[in-house]
């Protein structure tokens, strides 16, 4: 009890006596315990990672698009990784691996959930801070530590991990298997262990805060959908990351202590290894038990934020609030029951496979409910095409396009052909990569005024949106055709195969578009940092006319969020276009003559 009093009291104290409170640079910007500052730390670290990860993709697309050419500047930039101006195969694999690792974990997990769960949970549920600001700060610093370790692995002599972001053994378990299986792989595992700790500390805090710290009147059924989405995300994280941790630990034992959890009957360069009795498939089970929920850890926050932004900017209540919550719940449950659809070709019992097919295809039901509700929310809405809104609509578009190809891949019979081809690359980039990025951009554009007290530049934002959405389709749509034709993923050079030579021009085209899209992201990064200091100042507390509680705080809220008492909540978050009023915020009491919620 006393620590609640201290925590909440501290918030009130800070807000009332801000002028007397001595915050040093270190406690305000570095080791901050304010959830809003921690959110900004996550966001900016995530942006730096996104630039690095995105740049890696440009480099390896250069190799895929121009396999015959040399680029002397590459050698200046990458040294022996690009001897003679040509990317070396080992480092091509390293770049692909790091691109996946960085984007999946460091950007779309930590950068997305870390930013918006930290920023929005206390603000939208009406709390002064997280349940444990200390754990929250630790969560960021573990992430920072993981980042430093992963980043340092880029500079070791033998290069970073290069066995793919899924780090399957035996490639990842044997130091002699490839150059990227040496120290780079150890650093990968240690970094991921730190990352998992960070994500667990964060998740524990998010769940506790949502269930325990809501303001008066904020019942679970009045929560904004963003919070529901972040809640399910956190639950998925705390239940699935520990399983990956156990897999990573066993892998570390195999690598460094001579155990054989994942190794058996292996011959390297004519030498028979002593390892016996292990199974590499076991690692795949442990990995994908996290790996599949991870897809939803990435996607759910984007779904939640897009729902919120769509309703706000369509000036209409979200269609089917409870159906939205229910379908997210269904997705969260199913996320744990479908992992083996990544393993149809591992020799999995076909009978067992059919269960996983069924459960996988079942995900289409809640997904379709969500899509239907987004579209009906937009239907006959009074739509404002703000940059945030455009990205939210773009999210829905990507989710539909990418989701449909999931139905192909979820069929084990079709998957035999499509597995490990560019069809898979196209599918998951659209549905998980681009869609989540769009959700994240929507969130950044929508909540930037609350985060920094200024607006982003709209012109740059519109250019960013249009290049991104057109570019994303131009990059990934053709990959479906390559995949259907059997073009395998992860290959260094396709020009050696007669059957794939015809895709040379297409690959070049994809690479060119990828570079343009990357440039558009740099425009966003410029806009972001420029606007923090020079953007148009926010003049009203509620610039979007939104119902949720974060817009009842001052333009630049201090630690503790509300200077006076925390507002009480009287209604759900989606009373738009009601009784002749454009919007009715959650803290406005229900009038006597008000109609009931429709």
């Amino acid at each position, binding site marked *: 009890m006393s620590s609640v009093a201290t925590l909440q009291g501290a918030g009130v104290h800070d807000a009332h006596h801000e002028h007397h409170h001595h915050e040093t640079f270190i406690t305000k910007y570095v080791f901050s315990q304010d959830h809003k500052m921690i959110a900004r730390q996550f966001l900016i670290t995530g942006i730096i990672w996104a630039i690095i990860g995105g740049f890696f993709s440009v480099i390896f697309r250069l190799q895929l698009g121009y396999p015959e050419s040399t680029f002397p500047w590459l050698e200046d930039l990458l040294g022996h990784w690009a001897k003679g101006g040509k990317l070396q195969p080992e480092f091509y694999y390293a770049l692909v691996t790091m691109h996946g690792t960085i984007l999946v974990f460091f950007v779309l997990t930590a950068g997305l959930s870390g930013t918006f769960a930290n920023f929005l949970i206390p603000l939208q549920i009406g709390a002064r801070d997280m349940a444990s600001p200390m754990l929250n700060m630790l969560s960021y610093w573990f992430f920072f530590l993981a980042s430093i370790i992963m980043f340092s692995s880029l500079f070791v002599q033998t290069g970073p991990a290069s066995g793919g972001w899924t780090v399957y053994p035996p490639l990842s378990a044997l130091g002699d298997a490839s150059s990227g299986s040496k120290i780079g792989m150890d650093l990968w595992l240690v970094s991921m262990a730190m990352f998992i700790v960070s994500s667990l500390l964060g998740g524990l805090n998010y769940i506790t805060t949502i269930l325990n710290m809501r303001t008066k009147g904020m019942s679970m059924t009045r929560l904004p959908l963003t919070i529901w989405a972040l809640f399910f995300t956190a639950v998925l994280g705390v*239940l699935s990351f*520990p399983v990956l*941790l156990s897999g990573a630990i066993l892998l570390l034992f195999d690598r460094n202590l001579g*155990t054989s959890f994942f190794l058996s009957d292996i011959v390297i360069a004519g030498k028979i290894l002593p390892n*016996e009795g292990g*199974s590499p498939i076991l690692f795949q089970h442990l990995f994908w038990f996290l790996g599949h929920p991870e897809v939803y850890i990435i996607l759910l926050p984007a779904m939640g934020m897009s729902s919120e932004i769509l309703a706000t900017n369509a000036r209409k209540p979200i269609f089917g609030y409870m159906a939205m919550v229910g379908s997210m719940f269904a997705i969260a449950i199913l996320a744990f029951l479908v992992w083996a659809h990544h393993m149809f070709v591992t020799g999995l019992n076909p009978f067992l496979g059919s269960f996983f097919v069924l459960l996988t295809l079942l995900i289409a039901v809640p997904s379709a409910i969500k899509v239907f509700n987004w579209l009906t929310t937009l239907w006959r809405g009074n739509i404002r095409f703000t940059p945030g809104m455009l990205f939210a609509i773009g999210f829905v578009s990507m989710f539909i396009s990418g989701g449909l190809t999931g139905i192909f891949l979820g069929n084990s019979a079709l998957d035999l052909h499509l597995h490990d081809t560019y069809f898979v690359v196209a599918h998951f980039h659209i549905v998980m990569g681009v869609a989540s990025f769009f959700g994240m951009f929507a969130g950044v554009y929508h909540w930037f005024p609350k985060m920094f007290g200024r607006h982003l530049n709209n012109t740059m934002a519109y250019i960013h949106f249009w290049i991104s959405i057109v570019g994303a389709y131009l990059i990934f749509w053709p990959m479906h055709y390559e995949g259907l034709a059997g073009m395998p993923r992860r290959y260094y050079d396709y020009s050696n195969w007669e059957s794939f030579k015809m895709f040379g021009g297409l690959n070049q085209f994809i690479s060119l578009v990828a570079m343009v899209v990357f440039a558009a992201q740099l425009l966003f990064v410029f806009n972001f940092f420029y606007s923090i200091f020079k953007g148009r100042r926010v003049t009203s507390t509620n610039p979007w006319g939104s119902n949720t509680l974060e817009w009842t705080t001052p333009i630049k809220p201090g630690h503790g969020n509300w200077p006076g008492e925390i507002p009480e909540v009287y209604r759900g978050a989606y009373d738009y276009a009601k009784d002749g009023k454009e919007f009715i915020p959650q803290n406005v009491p229900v009038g006597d003559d008000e109609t009931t919620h429709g």
Partner: protein
Amino acid sequence: MNTVVMEQRKKLHPHKFTLWVGIGSILMMFAGLTSAYIVKRNQANWLSFELPHWFWYSTGAIVLSSVCIMLAVRSLKKGEMAAYRGWVGSTLVLGVLFIVMQWMGFRELWAQGITLVGNVAYSFLFVIVGFHALHVLGGVIALLVLYIKILIGKADRSNLVPVQLAATYWHFVDLLWIYLMIFLLMIR
């Protein structure tokens, strides 16, 4: 300020809730390890083993320590500080004893030629038991902090939360060990 506190105070203290979610998370890790164990158990090349005697003694120690921490919470509730200090101290000693006995158990296994590097069954045994011991060590550190605070007179008599948190975690590692013991006895 008090109204805010009252408004936001719910049935369960947020730190306790966090601990429960954390326990769920740790459980998932052991669920991952033990289910991997079951999968491997059903494949060829699995050598059975006998659990060392020391594991039985350590089971006794940890069960006893759970009783001690329960009595510690009870004495703090009654405000009996001397008894409280005694019970926290006994839990701490039994916790350390548990880890030492696990180590002795490992030595007993080594003496029989059952080592970490060898049959995959043995590797699993060491990893699972070792990881549980690490979690107990975390609890021992928490108890140590609690005990030092009592010794230097910094324990808050009116605040039950720290010792309740320690007790919940301690019961958890105790029950987890009993589960692992039964699991290892039944599936070898």
